[in-house]
């Protein structure tokens, strides 16, 4: 076991973990932040995307111990039903989700796209930038619309 300390959604947490604990497991099992999902083992589906020090990463492909000292933001940390983040609101308003399983990772990736590429995103850019997030329900049509609207609303 090894000790790790990080800031998650603004709160500092310290825990003793097995070194093989992935950040996704740490968030889900230790902190009960189950909004971060795990949909594959090969780092492709993106259901596990969270922000570490302001950048979107795949929490299933990062050791919790590697995040010692880092600041982590999960889907639970960006908005609440009464006070949605503009990207969360955009996903709802555009019907950008169906089963909801990929949605947290999708939203966290979408915010990262805006952080990197700005607020005016065309369809081509959004589709290319979503390469690392797989959705089986929506056919992406409404996700693309949601990201464009959310990006503009984040201004």
């Amino acid at each position: 076991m090894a000790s790790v300390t990080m800031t998650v959604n603004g709160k500092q947490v310290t825990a003793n973990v097995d070194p093989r604990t992935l950040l996704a497991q740490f968030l889900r099992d230790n902190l009960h932040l189950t909004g971060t999902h795990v949909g594959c083992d090969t780092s492709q589906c993106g259901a596990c995307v969270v922000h570490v020090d302001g950048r979107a990463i795949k929490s299933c492909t990062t050791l919790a111990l590697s995040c010692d000292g880092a600041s982590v933001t999960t889907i639970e940390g960006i908005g609440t039903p009464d006070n949605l983040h503009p990207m969360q609101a955009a996903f709802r308003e555009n019907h950008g989700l169906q089963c909801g399983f990929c949605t947290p990772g999708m939203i966290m990736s979408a915010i990262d796209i805006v952080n990197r590429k700005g607020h005016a995103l065309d369809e081509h850019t959004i589709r290319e930038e979503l390469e690392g997030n797989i959705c089986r329900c929506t056919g992406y049509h409404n996700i693309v619309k949601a990201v464009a609207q959310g990006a503009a609303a984040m201004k």
Partner: protein
Amino acid sequence: MYAFSYHNPKTVRQAATLLSKNAEGKVLAGGQTLLPTMKQRLASPSALIDLGHAEGLSGIEQKGRNIVIGAMTRHVDVATSAIVKNAIPGLAALAEGIGDAAVRNRGTIGGSIANNDPAADYPSAALALGATIVTNKRKIAADDFFQGMFATALEEGEIIVKVSFPIPSKAAYEKFPNPASRYALVGVFVAKKGSDVRVAVTGAGSNGVFRSKECEAALAGRFNAKSLEGVKVSASGLNADMHATSEYRAHLIPVMAKRAVTKALGK
């Protein structure tokens, strides 16, 4: 994953010491290949030596006619670096196309080159640009560094510290991705420096990254896409799998080379 001990050295020297003490240990850079491999229980290092907190391993600078990139520099930082975009835009574009955005935020150039995955992008750039791989022990020319699938010149206890890319006059990378994994099915990096033209191919060779003599010969005369018309690359020694036969890969090499040359010429 199997159990392992975790180490978090603050310097490369400490990391090297830890590596020598843990014969079955491995260096953890960005972890974007190593961790999935360990999750599948296909690798079982006894120890992970995480370079994430080691000093002096990240950063990009221009030193004379070279771009020098620290081993722990993330792909995203290479992709967005003004220095790289200005000096070797083809290298920045290559980094922009590695994996996906979240992978680029985590994966590192040192990790990619040390792993020498036969379908990774960076080895083609290192080979075509004639890069020098600088380790904690020595400098290794890219020509000598890549020694076949997942095999490199790195010795035990040796850690990549930085990679130095000579600035070419023209360079570009064109990737044909595997439709599923999005790794390179065929990736071609072309570089022209003076009269020297190099064409390095990743993803296609059953023995990892290699230089395409056929394409280089065709481009030696005139560095334009037309020179590659009708160039035939032999399929022998190329990978074959459900996504691409070796003939298809052989066909795609000059096609991707052509597109890379067009890109390098800014057309």
